[in-house]
């Protein structure tokens, strides 16, 4: 039984806006990155999984239960961190997280104990007794994470968890997310449009674009070697490319980098000799890897030098 399964899941807003278009997914536990541009349908998918939105057609199951029929049973075991602000300003973090724990079905004493523990885990100490209204954005994000964790969920849905945080805050939040997934062993879906962040914490990737699944695979397969060698030189990249082409390689110029097709080891020697002969200042030679950005890049191909 997959953790999350959707079949031909479709969500339309009105006549023309299609947020999800016949999406088919099967997701196993892990730290799953849900990537896509703004408006790709990430938040819509999370909201449907939570039962906050009803799908227009198709179906979705979480832990083997249908989201439209078994909302409360599923949500007992799901934690959700929304993208937007969702905290009342006039209560303290302790009161609020305890309350939310009880809203998940924890008995009162268990909710209190778990609150103290998760607030410590997310790094809120003395300030947890003060009203949330006075907290910084970073502290508010921690409270949002704490309320999502208080009932020890089996599945954690995080919508843009680093929204509005400064670089240091981002790092801390990403570390927390990573610990939650690995150390606490909670299956986590992180929706983000920031690919760099996804790369840092996730083990599996779901890329969606315009409501359709672009690709679903382990993160490693997105960043495999491409079979391209990047040769960066101080200047005269054009000359180098021309020389390499003359030597029988396929080479293209991209700024100060010459991209060379590299199916075997032979091009290394040819590049070394060419750089030496032309007397170029060599900066680096590296094996190119796929980057996540390539998923969403369709236009710019480097010009090939004939």
């Amino acid at each position, binding site marked *: 039984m997959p953790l999350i399964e959707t079949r031909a899941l479709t969500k339309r807003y009105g006549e023309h806006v299609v947020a999800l278009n016949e999406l088919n997914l099967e997701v196993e536990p892990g730290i799953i990155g849900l990537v896509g541009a703004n408006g790709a349908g990430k938040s819509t998918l999370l909201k449907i999984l939570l039962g906050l939105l009803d799908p227009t057609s198709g179906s979705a199951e979480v832990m083997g239960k249908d989201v439209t029929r078994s909302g409360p049973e599923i949500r007992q075991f799901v934690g959700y961190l929304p993208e937007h602000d969702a905290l009342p300003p006039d209560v303290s973090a302790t009161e609020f997280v305890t309350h939310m724990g009880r809203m998940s079905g924890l*008995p009162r004493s268990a909710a209190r104990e778990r609150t103290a523990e998760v607030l410590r885990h997310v790094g809120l100490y003395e300030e947890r007794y003060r009203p949330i209204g006075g907290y910084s954005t970073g502290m508010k994000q921690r409270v949002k994470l704490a309320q999502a964790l208080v009932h020890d969920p089996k599945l954690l849905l995080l919508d843009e968890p680093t929204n509005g945080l400064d670089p240091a805050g981002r790092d801390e939040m990403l570390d927390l997310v990573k610990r939650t997934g690995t150390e606490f062993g909670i299956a986590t879906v992180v929706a983000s449009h920031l690919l760099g962040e996804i790369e840092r914490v996730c083990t599996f990737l779901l890329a969606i674009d315009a409501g359709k699944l672009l690709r679903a695979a382990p993160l490693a397969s997105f960043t495999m070697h491409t079979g391209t060698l990047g040769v960066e030189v101080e200047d005269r990249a054009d000359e180098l490319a021309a020389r390499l082409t003359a030597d029988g390689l396929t080479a293209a110029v991209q700024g100060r980098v010459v991209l060379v097709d590299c199916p075997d080891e032979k091009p290394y020697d040819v590049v070394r000799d060419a750089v030496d002969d032309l007397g170029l200042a060599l900066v680096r030679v590296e094996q190119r890897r796929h980057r996540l950005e390539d998923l969403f890049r369709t236009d710019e191909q480097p010009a090939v030098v004939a």
Partner: protein
Amino acid sequence: MTTRESASGAIYDLGYQGYDGPRLGRSAAITTLFWDSLRASFGLGRSGRAKIIPWGLTAFMLIPAAVAAAIAALVPVGGASPFSYDNYLFGSAPLLSLFVAAQAPELVSKDQRHRVLALYFSHALLRSDYALAKVGALAAALFIVCVLPMLVLFLGAVLAAADVAAAVGDQLGNIPQILGAPLIYAVPLAALGLAIAAWTPRRAYATGAIIAVFIVTAAVAGIVEQASQGTLGQWIPLANPFVALDGARDLLVGARNVDAVGTRSLPLWIYGAETLAIALAGTGATLWRYWRLDP
């Protein structure tokens, strides 16, 4: 569940602990929301400022009954008290209106304004559970506010009597009214007040709208009634929800309130029907609002 311990036995880092205990599910979530909202209706667990209005209005509700009871106890001769089970709640209509206007938004506006609703709806309850728990909590709060002065009147009547046991016996017949009338007032007022408050995330608008519906309709109905003649005039007081509620209370008691004959001349079942309609329509509108709302 294990804790990591060092060789010396001191606990270094508890690590993350899972939770294997009971999960009480939807019913516990509803109960929690109900009790928390009932407490919030009186500002309990909130700042001191949040207590001023509900406690102040509850005190004003009690003062006339308490004063009447005190006078009856101190001056045994005593003529008829101006306050009775029959007229007390109707006479308190402005205070009850203010209580609803102040506390209905307290229960629901913040959740919309600060989008806490998205978190509630992603927990172990349904949207309709949320709506009904809130209506129920406000109704329970209003019941408490209404039943307290009735109990004071009861105690006043019993304690002022020379023969307490006989007085208790005399008062037994009033028990349905002492408990029933507050219920008749509380449920429709809560349903109507919440239906209005749920419609906007802005607390001030909600308060204003409730005052408009509860107090302004009463005033306008009164003025129009004075101006109009004939049978049509009998129907105009129905525009005032409190006239309907008190008519329903008459229905419960089985007798027309003598103080109010002038404004209520229609058959009593009409007032009962309107009271029921207010309760159902208010609850329905609240449910519909939360059904449609995008948190």
